[in-house]
């Protein structure tokens, strides 16, 4: 930043001269209004409630003061329904006068709110993973401190091909954009590293039973990649065990498949499963040790994807506010500061690319039992992973967005 202490004092002096003393005092004492758009009812509520808990913890740890100003948090519950997310957001903006938003949780919600965020010029720190929000159709008011759908899947594919020496794999995920994007990213990197994806399965999101998918799963493969979200991976894996497939086929999982939130209800059958994510409650850095211990102490379980996501986004928000001395009213300057943020957080070092997406570590993790509970022990770190993996950003963006059919799967066997 070219904003030195001296130029700040000058600017402040001009401000005082121009507007008079009282105005400046009022601007500084008024709290910053943060909106948290989350999900507290419906099937996604588990993650949404964790988001609220983590944000409350962060704000409390900072004495309700970020960037030198008091903050007020308003929480909106979208129930995970896109239309409702849009309506709640409008309520937060017009009634609660929020100046910055953390959330929403799901990709469909972020897409539904996209236009409104642009028209209101509302700085948004989201956990929604949809690729194009920071790729082909980037929103200038958007930063994402977590990961795109495929950002954590690319390194896992590399790990499967190079470290685990898998040659033939299948992928399975929910039949929604998140699942398609994750599997597509996995497939691209795995096949570019010499592997073959021989089977792709996309069961409907609300499939009652995975039996039919388990029965048609190929058995002559090295491993299967799970791109599930929420409780579906949990159910799939239980049924996988039920059919006696465990031990015959290796299972690796995407960033939401064996989340801490899911692990706490699992038993030893999950031991040894490898997943990739931008976070693990077991991460060994001072910020996370403090965060995870305090969270566990209060709620009696490990923070997972959503809790960590919100805690990291809050840290990014705090750093950006500090660098503009709390002046969130100057939106372009604040947005610039958000995207220029470079700090250490609970997930490790954080920086953003020109599209507003995180460049950060992705961890390969293995389910282990420690102090009586299951956790994701970090076994390998891919540092500073970009959403474009090792591909050239310009070339990457010329391709269509990841989907069910792109990149085309050339090695499928029927």
């Amino acid at each position: 930043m070219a904003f030195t202490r001296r130029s700040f004092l000058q600017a402040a002096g001009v401000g005082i001269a121009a507007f008079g003393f009282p105005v400046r005092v009022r601007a500084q004492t008024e709290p910053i209004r943060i909106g948290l758009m989350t999900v507290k009812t419906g099937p996604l509520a588990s993650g949404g409630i964790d988001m609220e808990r983590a944000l409350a913890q962060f704000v409390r740890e900072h004495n309700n003061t970020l960037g030198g100003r008091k903050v007020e948090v308003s929480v909106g519950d979208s129930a995970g329904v896109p239309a409702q997310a849009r309506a709640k957001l409008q309520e937060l903006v017009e009634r609660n006068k929020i100046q910055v938003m953390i959330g929403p949780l799901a990709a469909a919600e972020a897409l539904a709110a996209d236009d409104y965020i642009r028209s209101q010029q509302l700085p948004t720190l989201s956990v929604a993973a949809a690729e194009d929000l920071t790729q082909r159709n980037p929103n200038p008011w958007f930063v994402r401190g977590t990961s795109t759908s495929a950002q954590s899947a690319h390194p896992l594919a590399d790990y499967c091909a190079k470290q685990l020496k898998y040659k033939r794999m299948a992928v399975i995920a929910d039949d929604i954009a998140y699942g398609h994007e994750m599997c597509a990213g996995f497939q691209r990197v795995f096949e570019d590293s010499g592997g073959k994806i021989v089977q792709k399965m996309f069961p409907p999101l609300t499939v009652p039973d995975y039996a039919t998918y388990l029965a048609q799963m190929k058995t002559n493969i090295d491993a299967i990649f799970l791109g599930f979200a929420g409780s579906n991976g949990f159910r799939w894996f239980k049924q996988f065990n039920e059919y006696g497939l465990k031990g015959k086929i290796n299972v690796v999982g995407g960033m939401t498949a064996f989340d801490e939130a899911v692990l706490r209800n699992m038993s030893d059958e999950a031991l040894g499963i490898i997943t990739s994510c931008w976070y693990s409650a077991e991460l060994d850095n001072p910020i996370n040790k403090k965060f995870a211990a305090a969270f566990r102490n209060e709620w009696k379980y490990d923070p997972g994807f959503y809790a960590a996501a919100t805690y990291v986004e809050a840290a990014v928000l705090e750093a950006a506010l500090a660098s503009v001395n709390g002046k969130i009213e100057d939106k372009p300057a604040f947005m610039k500061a958000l995207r220029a943020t470079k700090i250490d957080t609970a997930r490790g070092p954080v920086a953003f690319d020109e599209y507003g997406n995180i460049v950060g570590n992705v961890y390969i993790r293995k389910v282990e039992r420690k102090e009586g509970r299951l956790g994701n022990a970090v076994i390998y770190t891919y540092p500073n992973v970009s959403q474009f993996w090792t591909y050239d950003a310009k070339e990457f963006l010329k391709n269509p967005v990841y989907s069910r059919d792109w990149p085309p799967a050339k090695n499928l066997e029927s």
Partner: protein
Amino acid sequence: MQFWIVQSLNSLALGGLLFLLATGFSLIFGLMRIANLTHGALFMLGAYVGVTTLKFVPNLWLAALIAGLLVALFGGLLERSILRRLAGNALGQVLVTLGVSFIVADFCLIVWGGDPIPIAAPTSLQRPIVVGNIAFPAYRLVVLGIAIITAIALHLLMERTRLGAMIRAGVDDMQMARAVGVPVSRLFTTVFCLGAALAGAGGVIAGPIMSAYPGLDADMLPLALIVVILGGVGSLLGAFVGSFVIAIIYTFGSALLPDLAYVILFLPMIVVIAFRPRGLFGRRST
């Protein structure tokens, strides 16, 4: 060959599960003309009550029984206190039952949290049965057995008991039944409790396969509707046949034509509605 055998077994097990879910719905709809949209929520409530019960009584079957009774109690209260006042008001009933299902879903979320909770199958049934190179989960075969036993028990209830005779009379011609002295009020409550009990116990029995999770209600309710509409309302045989037909179509459909998984589930229902509006075994009602 292995594919066909395993998928056939899958169909049968899923059919058993669907029957446990749908038969209560069918009974209530057939007799009381109430499209009870809380049915999915009662199923989920049963699963969650089973989770808690299992902490005190480590026996799945006993837990299913207890959950069935508690859910029946809830169903009875619902019928007596609210639905009773809405007799004849179909739209009101649909709205109320849908509303209650939301309340139950959020109640479950508050009490049991948002994470999926597994329900363990009895230890002896946790291993798959292996014949040759085919492995199939033992528990699913037991579920199929339970569904068949339930079907036989319900059949005997309907055909051989006084209660069954009254229910059949009520389904066929409500006014006539009333005229010859069938205590319709008590009968309605009994049937609603029975339907709720089947849903609640079904939720626990399905637990080791599906787990208890928020959204289970919304996943199951459409399946109950499809089965009942296909089989014909109020018909035990219809619910039984409908469950297995849907399970077979669904299992093979999603295995052979995976891209059409959504369509396949609803297609048979649409065809049946178009050509046989009362379902395969539904009787003309008055």
